[in-house]
């Protein structure tokens, strides 16, 4: 297995399936790739900063902004009363204010907005507001919200079969544990630049995964039509879900000032502000009770999944639903009851983050697997395999939400990986090591991944593209998806180039703009290439068919005989350079522009009964990780990870491997060193990289063997039979947490799992202490 991405072929290769470099790679490395803050600033630009709440929950008694207005460089100060339209940036529930009105519901919530001649002037002035509060009870933790009965929506129950089978199960395993949240830590912070246009129009450069939503929310806030607002985005410096709903706040603030002053306005959050006032991955508390037979096969499972949603609804209902959809992972849950509590707390409203609740559901069931194995003294891999979905028709092939699993390949991937990574003999070696070493303990674990692809809100599964072919044969490609580094534009350009038989150099990738493709969905749910790839293909194919007609007419053959290849078009005896055919088509008055569209087929879901087919298909993968930990300090290292991941027939193996590796490392970060710490008053104390530690180069496993699964092919009619890749491999990181669980148990001899996430040195020591029991002897082992 290769330890690194494949080296790319010469740049002129156009084939779909080729490991072509990212379309912006040369711009990235030379510093010429423009992000929103790099674009030449318009004249008279104003810079913005929020004045923010210093309490988590309070009534606002009075607001005195006289010192803010008098501060040097300040041009204007705005409150909720200045918003001409809706004071709202929520994706659907209407409960996210741009600026607080009479109540603040999290510490850091924007209350007023300062516009000044420089960013420093705005930020300094924003500290001068005098706000009088009447403090109200603040729930910071899940426990506090639970005690107060504070929810964002009704608890949801997904059940199947007869969970009372628990009572008669030969073995019962129960436990509870917590997993922390995660900050996106995209390297480019939130930013928006609004420029007023004529007749009340507004142009906004926004670093967003969801231009259409920003457009609609800004229009409502300004009380104008969507057609009056244009959102533009060439690329983001990372998104990971953190720029799905969160950018609207900054865009609305910039647009408000631009509308009020007639001057362009930029809001660029600095790192601390970005981390303090934007949402994160949901923390979860899990409690479970499993009934199993002697082989570890689940007979019944009852599980509670409680999440901290924060102060508003945002996307929390769908995120928590996805946790339920993934609480089976690769395992058939015959008799199951999953109860999902969505707690409202006075902390920043948690939001989408790669995996969208899936990782939390999956970690929960993987923890159950580890705990069963420890209780029964079995190899956790044997327990996992005993619970796998069965083949179609086996009676073990339907999810707890009634979707048949017809494409299950996790068993084959796991078998492949087990053999290649030498799982059994390494597990034996770990046991020998652990007997011999006085205080270092190793752990090894192999965990699988099954992840559903499609937005679970069915109507979001649509995408559009706009393709122009110019008379000189060059192609202008636009689609509704957004580029955040994941290589979407590269893949869509490959697909488009392939339709015309052209090299990538003929395809101009352009900024995503709401005035080119309307009513788009967020680039999210890993669906970017699936949906926009098909939409662009449809648009390009429409034009290709028109060109084929022209060609056929000239050559006197049927249009089907026109072949587009290598920058030329052949039909009958005729062989023309592509640009020549375009020129002829133009002269023949042929429309060389087309919109493409795609709506994902087959999917439907009934939320009332929690049943249906929410996903078009599943992605699969597996990873085996080996760790070593120091039982005195709780420090650990990942020694080796081997992984295999299924991306179907890869559109671009280099980009897909990059996604797999990046997602894996990000997943390990979530479960180990990335710790969000809130104090009792609800203040986030880890709001910058000095205190919030994402993985750095030395946190990558000492050995990392990665492979795209050779047998991969999508059974569903996806574009070129590829599979989505953004989110699924994130959950390969669970293998490291599971290996740590093994190491901790090996150190204590406890017949149960005690580790919580993130597994910081402190939590590892805590897990060791819990495993040993309070009275255990304090010694090396």
């Amino acid at each position: 297995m290769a330890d690194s991405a494949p080296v790319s072929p010469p740049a002129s290769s156009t084939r779909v399936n080729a490991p072509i470099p990212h379309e912006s790679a040369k711009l990235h490395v030379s510093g010429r790739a423009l992000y929103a803050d790099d674009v030449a600033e318009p004249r008279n630009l104003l810079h913005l900063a929020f004045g923010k709440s210093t309490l988590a929950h309070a009534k606002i008694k009075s607001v005195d902004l006289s010192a803010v207005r008098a501060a040097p460089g300040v041009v204007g100060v705005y409150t909720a009363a200045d918003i001409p339209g809706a004071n709202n940036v929520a994706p659907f529930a209407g409960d996210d204010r741009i600026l607080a009105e009479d109540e603040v519901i999290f510490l850091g919530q924007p209350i007023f907005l300062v516009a000044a001649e420089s960013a420093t002037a705005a930020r300094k002035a924003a500290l001068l507001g005098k706000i009088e509060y009447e403090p109200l009870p603040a729930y910071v933790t899940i426990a506090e919200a639970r005690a107060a009965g504070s929810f964002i929506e009704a608890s949801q129950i997904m059940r199947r079969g007869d969970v009372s089978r628990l009572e008669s199960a030969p073995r019962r395993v129960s436990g509870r544990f917590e997993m922390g949240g995660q900050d996106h830590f995209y390297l480019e912070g939130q930013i928006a630049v609004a420029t007023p246009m004529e007749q009340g129009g507004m142009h906004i450069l926004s670093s967003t995964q969801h231009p259409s939503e920003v457009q609609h929310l800004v229009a409502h806030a300004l009380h104008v039509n969507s057609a009056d607002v244009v959102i533009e985005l060439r690329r983001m410096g990372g998104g990971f879900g953190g720029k799905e709903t969160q950018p609207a706040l900054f865009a609305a603030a910039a647009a408000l000032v631009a509308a009020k002053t007639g001057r362009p306005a930029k809001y660029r959050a600095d790192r601390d502000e970005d981390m303090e006032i934007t949402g994160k991955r949901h923390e979860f508390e899990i409690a479970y009770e499993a009934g199993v037979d002697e082989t570890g096969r689940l007979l019944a499972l009852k599980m509670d999944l409680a999440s901290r949603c924060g102060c508003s609804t945002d996307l929390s209902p769908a995120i928590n639903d996805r946790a339920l959809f993934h609480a089976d992972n690769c395992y058939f849950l015959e008799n199951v009851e999953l109860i999902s509590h969505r707690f409202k707390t006075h902390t920043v409203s948690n939001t989408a983050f790669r995996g969208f609740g899936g990782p939390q559901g999956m970690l929960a069931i993987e923890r159950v697997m580890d705990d069963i194995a420890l209780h029964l003294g079995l190899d956790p891999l044997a327990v996992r395999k005993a619970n796998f979905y069965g083949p179609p028709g086996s009676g073990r092939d339907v999810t707890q939400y009634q979707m048949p699993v017809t494409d299950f390949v996790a068993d084959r991937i796991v078998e492949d990986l087990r053999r290649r990574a030498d799982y059994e003999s390494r597990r034996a070696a770990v046991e020998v090591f652990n007997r011999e070493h006085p205080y270092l303990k190793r752990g090894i674990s192999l965990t699988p991944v099954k992840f559903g692809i499609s937005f679970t809100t069915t109507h979001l599964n649509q995408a559009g593209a706009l393709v122009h072919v110019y008379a000189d044969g060059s192609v202008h490609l636009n689609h509704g998806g957004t580029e955040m580094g994941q290589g979407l534009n590269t893949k869509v350009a490959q697909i488009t180039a392939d339709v015309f038989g052209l090299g990538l150099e003929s395809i101009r990738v352009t900024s995503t703009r709401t005035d080119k493709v309307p009513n788009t969905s967020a680039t999210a749910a890993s669906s970017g290439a699936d949906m926009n790839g098909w939409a662009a293909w449809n648009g390009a194919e429409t034009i290709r068919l028109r060109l084929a007609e022209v060609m056929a007419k000239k050559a006197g053959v049927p249009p089907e005989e026109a072949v587009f290849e290598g920058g030329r078009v052949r039909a009958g005896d005729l062989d023309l350079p592509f640009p020549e055919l375009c020129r002829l088509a133009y002269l023949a008055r042929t429309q060389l522009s087309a919109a493409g569209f795609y709506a994902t087929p087959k999917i439907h879901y009934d939320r009332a009964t929690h049943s249906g087919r929410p996903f078009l298909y599943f992605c699969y993968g597996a990873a085996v990780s080996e760790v070593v930990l120091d039982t005195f300090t709780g420090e650990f290292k990942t020694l080796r990870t081997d992984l295999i991941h299924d991306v179907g027939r890869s559109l671009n193996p280099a980009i897909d491997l990059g996604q797999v590796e990046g997602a894996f490392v990000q997943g390990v970060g979530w479960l180990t060193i990335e710790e969000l710490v809130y104090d009792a008053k609800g203040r986030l104390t880890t709001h910058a990289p000095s205190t919030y530690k994402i993985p750095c180069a030395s946190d990558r496993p000492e050995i990392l063997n990665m492979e795209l699964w050779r047998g991969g092919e999508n059974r569903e009619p996806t574009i070129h039979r590829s599979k989505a890749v953004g989110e699924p491999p994130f959950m390969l990181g669970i293998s490291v947490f599971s290996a740590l669980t093994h190491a901790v148990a090996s150190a204590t001899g406890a017949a149960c799992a005690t580790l919580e996430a993130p597994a910081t040195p402190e939590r590892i020591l805590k897990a060791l202490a819990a495993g040993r029991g309070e009275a255990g002897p304090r010694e090396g082992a």
Partner: protein
Amino acid sequence: MSDAIRFLLDGRMERLSGFDPTLTLLEWLRGPAGRMGTKEGCAEGDCGACTVLVGELEGEGVLWRAVNACIYFLPMLDGKALMTVESLGGEHPVQRDMVELHGSQCGFCTPGIVMSLAGRAMGAAGTQEADPRDVLAGNLCRCTGYGPILEAARRNPQKPAADPELVAQLRELRRKERLTLAWTDPATGVARRWIKPHDVADLARARLESPEARIVAGATDVGLWVTKRHRVLPEILHIGDLMREIEETPEGLKLGAGVRYAEAHAPMKRIHADLGELVRRIGATQVRNSGAVGANIANGSPIGDTPPALIALDAVLTLRRGDERRSLPLESYFLEYGKQDIRSGEFVESVFIPRPAPEDFIRIVKLTKRFDSDISAVCMGLRLRMEGERVASARLAFGGMAGTPKRAAAAEAALTGKPLSQDSLEAAAQALAQDFAPLTDMRGSSAYRLEAAGNLLRRFWFERAGAGGVLPQKPLMEGAFHG
């Protein structure tokens, strides 16, 4: 006296005056200079998206250093050469490698990474002997997982030919007199001054003239006061290019207060491998290239990067006021949180670290959430001076356990005069509860700090295996590979 800074940008001299002396290099690049390739990711020197290369005369050549432009005050560039990502064009070998190996995804961290890699290819400070992961520890990437970037770093770096023209240009920029920059904020009318003495004697005079001025060496801490806390620093005394002498003798190591971590690393490693490892884990390459050991001590941080170790090693500070000098044991310098034993007009001139005796046991350990570029939750320095099997004297100091780096008197007493045994170490571990009542913060709870600190002593029993001599450095998890 001079009132303008001069530096070389791509070989062309820039002469700047009349600007806010606490303007950062990043703000200048992205503002007046219009070089947008250098990015702001955190404005606190932790992510490396703003990495640029600064060149200085070193012997007969130019030594380049990667630094974080976001916390690098513009006047610090005076007399130096600067390269940004734009300086490389687009066809530099590391740029080609990064494209070919798919080393960028979103691309936002990429210019900083390219500069770290270009620095390595140019033989920049702290890169030649270092593991590629070490060279890149200060460049966070959220997309790639680092594999392709490390692959690019492993491709053979070549030190380019000397650049005599640049050497000549830099020699021209050497200062023989003090630099003073004065600026008044037009918005507030507040005056600010930047003073850069031209030698130590001049610094001693300047310190007497401006006893209230904030002394700045690498600005790896003070930079954040400006970028994060929006503090106004009316007067800055910049010592970054002074007191750079390193004296290694059989008795010990003397470091001038301006010696940067990167320069101090090798000699400190020769004092003890653990001390070298501690320095390797302070900040990352960019921070070690800017921050100075003595200046960090003088600053009096409660965590203290090196002080716990240096207190254990019985280091001595030399403080200077005018032409008068006094020596002070390092441990006496830290009075209480935010307060040090330093008098008006005085400054730290050097720190002396005595070389341990061959039979001493030394152990220096730093505990963090992330191994590289993280601030310690607990940092321990331990020196046991032995008489046969007995501990003749114990020096045990901790950072992160109190308002200052502090010795553990009760734990030391539990060891002193006793045979070194699992029992005496256990007694010392338990005695820590009398020495410390640590705080709970985002780096660790009070209980964890106390338990982990005690465990470091308990673990020491297993680590002391090579009894009779100075312990070899034990990289974490060494035993994991050798059983």
